[in-house]
């Protein structure tokens, strides 16, 4: 049992509050520069290529190299933002897509196709000159503009100086990635309230991949991995790169299959496909005329899919076949329109989904069907009456962009501006990226089962029963509260990871004693660590036993100090238990990881008030990041205007399969 570690502390010296940084010379980008920035210097890739041909050639096919106005998807969308919200708003994008333009002040002006560095993207020297990076996001890095000492062959000192200048501490730190792969929107981009954007680093830090084992009791050992482990795997140097014989891949492969196809580099295409195909498993079950498809994120260290999730187009295709393999019925057969898509949908001011990633229209999150690292999701398909036996085929199908974005960008490709950018790319010897190119459609995972006849399943449905049942129970934790009861029949009592799910469900149901007993059973079986303590914290918190909840939450933070959620829960539990100093301490620690976390900003402000400390700045920060206050109204408007909106907003979506 967790000892009561939180006393009703006497007020003590308060931790210094942590206020999110949202200012800077290039705000809304948080990028900064030390010294005088010369975009020409930073655009010099050729010098790098002399010694690092492998790295440069890999980079040239990457999303980093093609992040700028040569990228038709980016260009179309940033042009729209600049037109609607003004040039300054587009600094938000520029910090990570167009650092050379931003840092030379040119995001504040019209950008024509002939503009120097308008096609440069994120060049070698951008990443290799970052002297400081924070987890703030929106390009929260500082660029060192000091001259690059180029090495002399055989001169170790010069090589060392070169390395020292180009491989400063942030280069190998996740914080470098975090500075651009975490973002937030707000009044600066046209939304009245601050909205969270992408957050790959936060999600990764809370995962077992980062060595943080608070989210759940993992069913198997996982190696620690960080951004570079997956996105910059060590590859063979084939062109004599000085870094050889191997180097970290500079393809930065992720999920951008459309860009890889447009670049036309088969190796880039292969890298992206390999990455996406290792992301998830799919399983299918049938009970009482309902086909349940379970998707588990097994390989992605952040949410799956990641990036700008509102533009993603991954969906479940369910096909019902007769025993001869003829299609009887299904959903998602052609595209995602009638099925379940792993994406987010953001609502606009009128409650309708904003499907074109026009961030200035974003008001609140409608739904999020993406899956956290190592988590699982599920969708239920209500089958029509079918002649038995029959076959269920579930496939996870992926395109890079939702159909609406594809259409928008393709249309823009025909505009003179796009044609001119294409011409400019040709002049500069760059690849011309075609936004009308048919996007690759990849099958990432599948499962096949026969219903009504004893024939072995295939794919994800052919895995071991224990693994499958664990995935199912894991996904069922997302069921609405009144259905949590359904989990218990999927729990294997000899499998600690599975038993932990039972304890979690019990905790969520407010069944404290039962949850604690199951946790005790887990501990006796040897399970321990922050995941177990977190369930205890949840169980106590659910019934408002805050001191005990705080004690358990303290143990979680000790075991998973990189998980901002653990600090959030601790701050709240301590605050609720009447321990403002402890709450403040936890909130400040957590805000170092997640600077705009609303709950911790609130806990911080409340604690300062209770301690009698100056709290104005903290209160202002809390209110600034509290998000839209009318989100409930927007969701109701969506329900009323958009067919299927209510259904898609459910924690577990249920879809009706039409009759054959």
């Amino acid at each position: 049992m967790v000892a009561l570690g939180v006393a009703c502390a006497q007020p003590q010296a308060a931790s210094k509050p942590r206020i999110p940084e949202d200012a800077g010379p290039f705000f809304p980008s948080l990028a900064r520069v030390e010294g005088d920035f010369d975009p020409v210097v930073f655009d010099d890739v050729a010098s790098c290529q002399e010694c690092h041909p492998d790295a440069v050639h890999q980079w040239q096919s990457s999303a980093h190299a093609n992040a700028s106005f040569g990228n038709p998807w980016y260009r179309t969308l940033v042009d729209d933002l600049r037109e609607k919200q003004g040039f300054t708003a587009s600094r938000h994008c520029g910090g990570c897509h167009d650092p050379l333009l931003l840092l030379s002040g040119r995001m504040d002006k019209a950008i024509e196709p002939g503009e120097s560095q308008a096609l440069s993207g994120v060049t070698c020297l951008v990443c290799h000159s970052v002297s400081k990076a924070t987890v703030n996001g929106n390009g929260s890095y500082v660029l060192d503009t000091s001259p690059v000492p180029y090495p002399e062959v055989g001169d170790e000192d010069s090589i060392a100086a070169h390395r020292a200048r180009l491989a400063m501490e942030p280069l190998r730190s996740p914080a470098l990635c975090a500075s651009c792969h975490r973002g937030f929107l707000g009044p600066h981009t046209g939304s009245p309230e601050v909205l969270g954007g992408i957050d790959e680093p936060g999600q990764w830090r809370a995962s077992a991949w980062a060595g943080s084992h608070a989210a759940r009791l993992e069913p198997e050992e996982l190696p620690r991995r960080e951004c570079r482990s997956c996105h910059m795997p060590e590859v063979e140097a084939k062109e004599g790169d000085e870094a050889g014989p191997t180097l970290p891949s500079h393809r930065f492969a992720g999920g951008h299959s459309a860009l890889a196809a447009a670049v036309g580099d088969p190796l880039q295409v292969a890298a992206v496909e390999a990455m996406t195909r290792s992301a998830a498993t799919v399983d299918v079950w049938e009970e009482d005329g309902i086909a349940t498809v379970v998707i588990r994120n097994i390989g992605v260290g952040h949410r799956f899919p990641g990036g700008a999730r509102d533009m993603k187009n991954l969906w479940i295709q369910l096909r019902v076949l007769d025993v001869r393999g003829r299609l009887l019925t299904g959903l998602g057969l052609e595209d995602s329109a009638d099925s379940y898509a792993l994406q987010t949908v953001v609502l606009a001011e009128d409650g309708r989904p904003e499907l074109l990633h026009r961030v200035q229209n974003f008001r609140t999150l409608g739904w999020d069907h993406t899956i956290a690292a190592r988590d699982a999701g599920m969708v239920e398909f209500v089958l029509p009456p079918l002649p038995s036996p029959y076959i269920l085929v579930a496939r996870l199908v992926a395109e890079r962009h939702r159909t609406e974005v594809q259409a928008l960008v393709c249309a823009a490709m025909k505009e003179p501006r796009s044609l001119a950018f294409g011409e400019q790319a040709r002049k500069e010897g760059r690849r011309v990226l075609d936004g009308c190119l048919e996007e690759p459609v990849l099958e990432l995972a599948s499962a096949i089962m026969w219903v009504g006849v004893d024939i072995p399943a295939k794919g994800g449905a052919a895995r071991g029963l224990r693994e499958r049942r664990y995935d199912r129970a894991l996904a069922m934790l997302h069921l609405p509260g009144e259905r949590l009861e359904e989990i218990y029949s999927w729990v294997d009592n000899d499998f600690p990871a599975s038993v932990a799910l039972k304890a979690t469900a019990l905790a969520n149901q407010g069944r404290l004693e039962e949850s604690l007993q199951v946790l005790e059973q887990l501990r006796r079986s040897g399970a321990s660590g922050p995941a177990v303590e977190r369930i205890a914290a949840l169980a106590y918190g659910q019934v408002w036993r805050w001191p005990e909840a705080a004690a358990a939450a303290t143990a979680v933070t000790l075991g998973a100090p990189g998980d901002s959620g653990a600090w959030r829960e601790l701050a709240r539990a301590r605050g609720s238990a009447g321990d403002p100093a402890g709450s403040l301490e936890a909130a400040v620690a957590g805000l170092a990881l997640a600077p705009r976390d609303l709950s911790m900003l609130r806990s911080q402000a409340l604690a300062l008030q209770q301690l009698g400390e100056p709290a104005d700045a903290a209160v202002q920060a809390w209110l600034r990041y509290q998000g839209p206050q009318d989100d409930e109204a927007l969701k109701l408007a969506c329900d009323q205007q958009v067919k299927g909106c209510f259904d898609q907003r459910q924690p577990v979506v249920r879809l009706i399969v039409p009759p054959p």
Partner: protein
Amino acid sequence: MRRFFLAALLSLPLPAAAFCGFFVSGAGESLYANATMVVMMREGTRTILSMQNNYQGPPQDFAMVIPVPVVLQKENVRTLPKEVFGHVDTLAAPRLVEYWEGDPCLQPRYDMEMAARGGAMPVPMSAPAKRSAEYGVTVEAQFSVGEYDIVILSAKDSGGLEGWLKAEKYNIPAGSGDVLRPYVQAGTRFFVAKVDVERVKFEGDRALLSPLRFHYDSDRFKLPVRLGLLNSQGVQDLIVHILAPGARYEVANYRNVSIPTNLRADDSVRSDFGAYYEDIFRESIWGHPDTVVTEYSWDSSSCDPCPTPPLTASDLLTLGADVLPGQPTGGMVLTRLHYRYTKETLGEDLIFRKAEGLMGGTGIPDQEGKLSSEPQKNGNWNMFQGRYVMLNPWTGPIACENPVRGRWGGPPSGGDSRPISAPNKILNSGAVPAMAPPTRSRTGNPAFPDTRGTQTGSTIPEAASGSTIPEVSGSNTGGNSPTSSGSSNMAGSGSGSTIPEVGEGSNNMAGNAGDPPPKSESARCDSAGGLSGLAMLMGLFGLRRRKC
């Protein structure tokens, strides 16, 4: 997170002869002073919560504070006609029914008639329940609905709401700040409904405050109740009706039992069904203060017998179907849960879960007058009610060679008198609910008249003759799928379901179990102390005692 939701009623403080809040009964009036009745409709993540407001003080003194998980908009809030609450209550409340034995010499035609009339023709009888910135708060929205002025507040500090309420001249109990703190930590908003006396309808001198309904979306289906405990005075009853498509509900984090049903009552019950039922209820929860009693689960569009017509499409729309997708007007199961609590026994929000269908309290007596009293779980099929049966054996002449006894049906006159719908004596008598044991033991207990006298061995089972209150799925959670590797070892599963004899188990009672009967009204006013002037709608102020 949308975890915390609660409600409290507050009244403006009055000078000197302070109105004692909730517990005042008008002269000679019956009053179910401590009961709170809610009707919840649930589908997907949407919850529509309607509250019967039983506040009976001066309307200008009334205000209700409801912490809510989201900023409610005007379209989320409406008032309801009072009648709809009465309708739901009457339909779902325990009922007393009456059967008459048919002429033993008149055989076939009678049966055919019975069949044609849907089987049983009891004459039931049911028990309707009587029914700003300087304070660290921000007004998020403000609008009027019916006679209410609604303000949606967010608190910027733990004491903000407390300060605001005090500034608005509401009495709030000492210690509110501590209880409010977790809500503020969770980012809860506060819905404040005040009455505009200009818009109140009066019945005589009595203000008729409309029930309030509001809806919101949440992954969790729960009824937070903590805040109301702040000024909880003694024993209170909470009656929760849940309407949901195709499913019965029970409470995941409390012990569930179904009310003993199909018990035989004698004629004396007719005049005091409330007392009779009260005893059954007390016995059901005796020794287990954490018990929530299922009193009804039935398709809302039917009933048998019907103390009132079943719910209509219009009723369902009124109660929330209008804001559900597709505006369903059928297929809803009505569940009635009854929880009696004190400040000591109620500490946790009621967290609901779907439950297997339940059948019981149905059927017609067989030839020997027997009725099954055992509720059955039955997939998704719900036909359960608390039903108590009076039998009127044939008393006329028997002038045939082979009389057939035990054919039970409607009154010989052919009348169609309705059931007495749940005359919970508390509801009608003005009596105060108690956690006290049943008034008598099962032997000689007026609640179970068939256990005494000549009808021993009666063909209708004795009340709780097996001495076991049927648990409604209890706490067992570890059912196995066909492929499950093992049974669950869930703790606390359904143990202790035996009804103790009177006096038994008192050591197990938390808090007020076995307390002496409640004091008089004035005594309770006194006991309210500093809480006077604050009335709670649902008893939902939760006061958690800190450990340190």
